């Protein structure tokens, strides 16, 4: 998955997330067109009724559930905006949530809000910590009964552009060597 955030001169904005789900998707290549095919139907595997493990069969034309959240936050009174989205499968939502909290509630600047290590809660309620996540906080959470789970793959990536009055800030995730551009 890749995410692009754009803010134009007139204040219009676009948040767009595009996806090949898992690295290289279905790993099927079309040599005549040069196109790699995604494995989107894999996302039907997560579609279960809330109380059972039953998965209803696919329906032609159905779109599988997705963690993609290209979003735009607008504060008309202050002339502020945050154009944000992320990549990384089921890490997308926790990564975007923690970036928004860092930026809007904790007062981080945009780059720091994105760079700050995240935590993730897996489907069994176990807590997974990205490398460099505060050891003190991890200890404090364990004292409260939170169960820690090891996880080596953290492919979360967030891109965002923010407007604060006359000031425009843009940040791409250094986890994927991203660099933003503006003028």
């Amino acid at each position: 998955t890749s995410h692009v955030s754009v803010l134009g001169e007139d204040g219009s904005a676009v948040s767009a997330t595009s996806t090949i789900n898992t690295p290289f998707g279905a790993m099927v290549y079309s040599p005549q067109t040069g196109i790699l095919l995604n494995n989107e139907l894999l996302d039907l595997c997560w579609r279960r009724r809330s109380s059972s493990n039953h998965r209803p069969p696919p329906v032609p034309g159905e779109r599988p559930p997705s963690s993609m959240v290209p979003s735009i936050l607008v504060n008309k009174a202050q002339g502020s905006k945050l154009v944000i989205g992320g990549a990384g499968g089921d890490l997308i939502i926790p990564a975007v949530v923690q970036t928004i909290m860092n930026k809007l509630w904790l007062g981080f600047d945009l780059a720091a809000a994105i760079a700050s290590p995240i935590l993730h809660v897996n489907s069994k309620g176990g807590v997974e910590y990205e490398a460099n996540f505060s050891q003190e906080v991890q200890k404090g959470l364990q004292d409260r009964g939170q169960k820690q789970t090891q996880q080596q793959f953290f492919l979360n990536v967030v891109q965002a552009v923010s407007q604060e009055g006359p000031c425009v800030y843009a940040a791409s995730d250094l986890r994927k060597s991203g660099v933003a551009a503006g003028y």
Partner: protein
Amino acid sequence: MAWGHRSIVSLVLLGLGLALVITVLAVVLSRHHSPCSPQAFAHAAVAADSKVCSDIGRAILQQQGSPVDATIAALVCSGVVNPQSMGLGGGVIFTIYNATTGKVEVINARETVPARFAQGLLDQCELALPLGTGTQWIGVPGELRGYAEAHRRHGRLPWAQLFQPTIALLRGDFRMPSVLSQFLSHKFLQPLLYNSTLRQLFFNGTKPLRSQDPFPWSVLATTLETVATEGDQAFYTGRLGQMLVDDIVKEGGQLTMQDLATFQPEVVDALEMPLGNYTLYSPPPPSGGAILSFILNVLRGFNFSAESVAQLEGRVNMYHHLVETLKFAGGQRWRQWDPRSHPEVQNASQELLGEALAQHIRQQINDRGDHQRSHYNLAGDWGHRMG
């Protein structure tokens, strides 16, 4: 009396003089002291996951392209620089804010289930994890239709102009991007890639291409040139689509030209939820916007701030509430099904944005994190780690 009158006049004049000096100072200082920090831009910006693609997006803006034009150009580029992450064989979701109208719309061009698919497909889930390789997992690609619809509704520059920068990139001395080369040489992925049809693109003999190796991908440049001149129709009803379908069928897939021809992106209003002084606009199911809104709505009620997390105990407390809220969100994922195919979940997401559910969840959160999974309605597995 005269003396007193004169002194009042002088005081008034002095006051006026002072006021004038202060005003002039304020204006001069404000001119020099910009309210923006050094890394700010003055007009516009693009944030993509590579410098070259952010630069391509910015150049489109500077050619008076619309933000949608810039986004499309940056996405086309990202499909070449980070093909492990996205490309024309996938799907895209746009959330678009129009500053003139204040309207926010979502264009969902995620792939759909084809008319025919492998029998017992979902019985293969456990076996397929975590990567899901093989033609049986291929949906109907929506990417280009999504670009075309976004451009039709919000484009300013000619369609072809959005593809030129990436075509030039590919037609030039294109080298293996560093991030891509890391994925190619990853010990877990490399053998899978070598044994797939991607070997012909990414390997030199038995070795994957390394960072900065020449990376000739001229067949994709030709595809982009065809799309640039003939539009997305070349893919969805023309010879590009036919070539794609032939290649997939050759590998055992069941995609048809009919699947491509009937693919339509969906244009809907964004979900809208007040979040303090902001309004959060996000994509509705089957995307994750309702879950994102639910999490932020619950957490907003705890009023975290820089002050409240200044001490360690405050940070632990905030992350504890985040973890508990993420667990409750996991129990709500069943609401993300596609409402077009599952009428029974038609309005399930609206409840996620409501204050009643948020308040109810806040009351379920206490100082302990070791409740049973049923406390959060956490069912089976969900989501994959990659993407």
